[in-house]
């Protein structure tokens, strides 16, 4: 039987932003207007992936350098968080539900993946809602969802926790390790040895928080901020906008990703987050303890808080020896600077979180650079 050739339908809002002709045009324009040496940070791990997958660094003039930032949720989750999840996975009757990236992150002594091989019930879900459905299907078990992510993710978790309360589900909790971006940006501009000239700001986090968060960075530190989308044309255009601001001696907040981001963001999503979560101090791998940079469940939602429902004995967390994930997340070092990179630390056998996550700088370097 003859095979009928399958045609792949065009991906709307994707393919147009990958057009080689437009990319060449944009690169030529950046080369034309760029004179000063600049160091730009792409804050978000998804941007890091776009940059590496499309060879964007190689397209730019030598004096325009890009450094990767801390916007990889799994990467900045400290080892203590991984250890807590592992302790919970050993509780009788508990199912751990998590996004896939957390599975292979090494804890102090083991990983969730290794625990699963030992018999722990650890399941990958696509959405927190899948975890809630899991709890509703089997009331004899307790489902703990690992809440990892920034402001693009936290409202979705908040919506699921609200649904759990409405449905009076008693066997579903969240271990909240959520983080918020603005305190990290402030910590980065306060790192003197970094000297960042501009931020490529995360598109989907900004979809929620809007652009107010970037105003102090621009106003108090004079560092331009451009919110960018995730296709190569988006990132290149954002780089162009930053270069243009720097060449003109300006600093402002601009939105390149206007098809999705507005200055006000998504107030409904923020209201959801504020109903369910409250700010707490939080430890970031690399950046350390940052005040009010995490989200924990409010007392009203206490029965959905895994920290309250379970007695999680703290483990004395130890970051793996030789691993420089912390410096990489602050933009101070690059993955090839690490003695473990490509030798002891590979995607198949990761030592540090930045090699595990698909958004991690080490994983991107490993996959796309030689």
């Amino acid at each position, binding site marked *: 039987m003859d095979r009928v050739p399958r045609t*792949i*339908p065009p*991906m*709307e*809002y*994707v393919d147009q932003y990958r*057009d080689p002709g*437009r990319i060449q*045009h*944009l690169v030529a*324009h950046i080369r034309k207007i760029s004179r000063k040496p600049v160091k730009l940070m792409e804050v*978000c*791990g*998804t*941007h890091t992936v776009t940059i590496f997958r499309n060879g964007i660094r190689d397209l730019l003039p030598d004096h325009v350098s890009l450094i990767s930032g801390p*916007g*990889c*949720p799994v990467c900045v989750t400290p080892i203590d968080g991984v250890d807590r999840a592992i302790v919970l996975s050993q509780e009788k009757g508990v199912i751990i539900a998590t*996004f896939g990236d957390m599975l292979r992150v090494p804890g102090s002594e083991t990983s969730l993946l290794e625990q699963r091989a030992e018999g722990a019930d650890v399941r990958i879900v*696509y*959405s*927190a*809602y*899948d975890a809630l459905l899991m709890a509703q299907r089997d009331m004899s078990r307790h489902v703990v969802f690992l809440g990892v*992510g*920034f402001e*693009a*993710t936290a*409202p*979705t978790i908040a*919506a699921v926790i*609200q*649904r759990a309360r409405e449905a009076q589900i008693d066997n579903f909790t969240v271990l909240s390790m959520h983080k918020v971006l603005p305190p990290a940006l402030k910590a980065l501009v306060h790192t003197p040895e970094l000297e960042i000239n501009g931020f490529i700001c*995360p*598109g*989907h*986090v900004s*979809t929620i928080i809007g*652009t107010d968060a970037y105003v102090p960075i621009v106003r108090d530190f004079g560092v331009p901020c451009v919110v960018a989308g*995730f296709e190569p*044309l*988006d990132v290149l*255009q954002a780089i*162009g*906008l930053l270069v243009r601001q720097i060449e003109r001696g300006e600093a402002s*907040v*601009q*939105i*390149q990703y*206007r*098809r*999705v*981001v507005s*200055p006000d963001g*998504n107030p*409904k*999503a923020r209201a*959801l987050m504020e109903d369910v979560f409250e700010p707490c101090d939080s430890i970031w791998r690399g950046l350390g303890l940052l005040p009010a940079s995490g989200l924990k469940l409010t007392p009203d939602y206490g029965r959905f808080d895994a920290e309250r429902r379970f007695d999680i004995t703290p483990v004395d967390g130890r970051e793996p020896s030789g691993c420089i994930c912390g410096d990489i997340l602050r933009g101070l070092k690059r993955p090839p600077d690490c003695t473990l990179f490509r030798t002891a630390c590979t995607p198949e056998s990761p030592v540090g979180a930045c090699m595990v996550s*698909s*958004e991690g700088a080490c994983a991107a370097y490993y996959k796309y650079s030689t």
Partner: protein
Amino acid sequence: MCLGIPMQIREIEGNAAKAVLSGTARLIYLDVLDEEVQVGDYVIVHAGFAIHKIDEKEAKETLDLFKEAGVFGSGSENDTAHGVR
């Protein structure tokens, strides 16, 4: 931190919808959206939830800018084409 993809809404039932990208369909949830959506609209989907509707007019304008010689907009000092916001 921003893994998200543009998908087109094909069916809506309450707070859930069927959305497609390049022929692949998924069930998504609409709880987080702050505006009404209809069948045919495009949304950004993150962790199983639509987090924002895509503004078709802005999407087209961004693409049109790439065609122009200026690339980044009108090039005027007040930066109207790209709206400093």
